[in-house]
């Protein structure tokens, strides 16, 4: 019979266990040192970041570009500067961005609710930013007027605020509509807890290209849908969701049937 190598047998087993034990001890030692090291680094880092944040607090709050860069920097090192007090009160203190963010959140809810009757709870992100900017400019009553970018907000700020609203369960969500169909997608904010199915997203995208107008024929032509599918999608939006409006005076003879989606119509007021 042939024997196994030198490592076999009872003695070998003991030897192996001993070496495992010493490896354990060594690794414990190493990780303790590492953890200590890490703690020191973290303290250092935290001090530096706090220092940076307090020194540039005004820039972060007022300059959207600076804020963007700051947020990008934080994201790349896995820190969320806007995390509320539950995750790190010192951030909130250092920046005061928590307040800023909740204030923006309240304004977003305000705009979404007050425009809901005319858009059925769907609003284009750029439109939301436009209304918010107007609201905020009016809000500071001449003090900040003229100074352009001071206090300006970006789409990114709004998206962040909406994400911060998520725990409230209000169902606010940012949707991307129309990627693939003619390039750049549009971002829409949905403020009603209704699911938009894939077909409705396509309808939105088509309507967005036509000032808000859409009809069965264009859906069939652009997407290769059957007439039934186009009709069903539009009827759902019209009757069930209230996210589109009917026009029965369409076309040159004024008797055509078209649908309008207020969320992608551009309103001047």
């Amino acid at each position, binding site marked *: 019979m042939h024997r196994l190598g030198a490592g076999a047998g009872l003695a070998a087993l003991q030897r192996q266990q001993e070496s495992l034990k010493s490896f354990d001890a060594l690794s414990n030692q190493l990780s303790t040192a590492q953890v200590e090291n890490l703690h020191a680094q973290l303290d250092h880092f935290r001090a530096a970041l706090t220092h940076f944040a307090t020194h540039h607090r005004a820039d972060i709050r007022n300059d959207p570009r600076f804020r963007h860069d700051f947020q990008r920097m934080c994201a790349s090192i896995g820190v969320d500067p806007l995390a509320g007090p539950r995750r790190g009160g010192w951030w909130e203190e250092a920046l005061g961005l928590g307040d800023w963010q909740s204030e923006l959140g309240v304004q977003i809810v305000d705009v979404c609710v007050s425009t809901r*009757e*005319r858009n*059925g709870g769907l609003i284009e992100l750029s439109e939301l930013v436009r209304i918010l900017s107007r609201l905020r400019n009016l809000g500071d009553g001449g003090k900040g007027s003229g100074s352009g970018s001071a206090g300006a907000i970006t789409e990114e700020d709004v998206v962040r605020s909406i994400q911060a609203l998520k725990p409230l369960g209000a169902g606010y969500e940012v949707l991307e509509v129309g990627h693939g169909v003619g390039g750049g997608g549009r971002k829409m904010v949905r403020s009603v807890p209704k699911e938009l199915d894939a077909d409705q997203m396509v309808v939105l995208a088509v309507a967005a290209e036509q*000032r808000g*107008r859409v009809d069965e024929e264009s859906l069939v032509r652009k997407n290769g849908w059957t007439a039934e599918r186009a009709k069903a999608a539009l009827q759902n939006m*019209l*009757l069930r969701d*209230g996210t589109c*409006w*009917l*026009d*029965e*005076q*369409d076309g040159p003879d*004024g008797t055509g049937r*078209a*649908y*309008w989606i*207020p969320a992608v*119509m*551009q*309103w*001047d*007021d």
Partner: protein
Amino acid sequence: MNFSAHRTTTGFLLPSIHSAPPFYTQQPNAATQAVFTEHWTRLLLAYARHRGLFVLRVEDAEVSAGGEWDEVLRNPRINRRVKPELLSHILDAMVGKSLAAYEPAGQTRAALLHWRLPEEWAEVLHEWATKTGQLNTILTFYEISDPPDPSALSGIPGALLRPAIAILAKSGRAQLISISDGDGVRFFPRSAK
């Protein structure tokens, strides 16, 4: 092109929704139509006030153009108009909210628009009588609604005058009088307090 407000030739500012084609179609979604009806109600009352119009008839939405309501009920810039069925629906909602009243009662084709409350008409009326030096004299309804110098009361129907006079009568500032050819009224100065 965006949906925007429009200034009419009579100087009335139409809201941006007036430039949206579906605004002229009765919406199958009741919630949507309720919003549209509210917009129409506000718009019609504001326009009536702007032009001093008292009566709105379903036939103002009939095909032949040229009526005093055309600026609002039609939008030639987008080739849309309010059809009689929609106007009828809007009128019904306005009557339901006491912002209009069918006149005469018992039909639904014409309504008086209440763009001022009876209390407000009472004040306008008394002020006019005082300013034009017609206190203590008997005036016919015709003299009020068709004065030689056009006033805020020009064209006011008896159905709006009567409640206003009743309100003034309560505070002793007017008295309704029956005269040979219909109704008359005498105004008194505001009693010193």
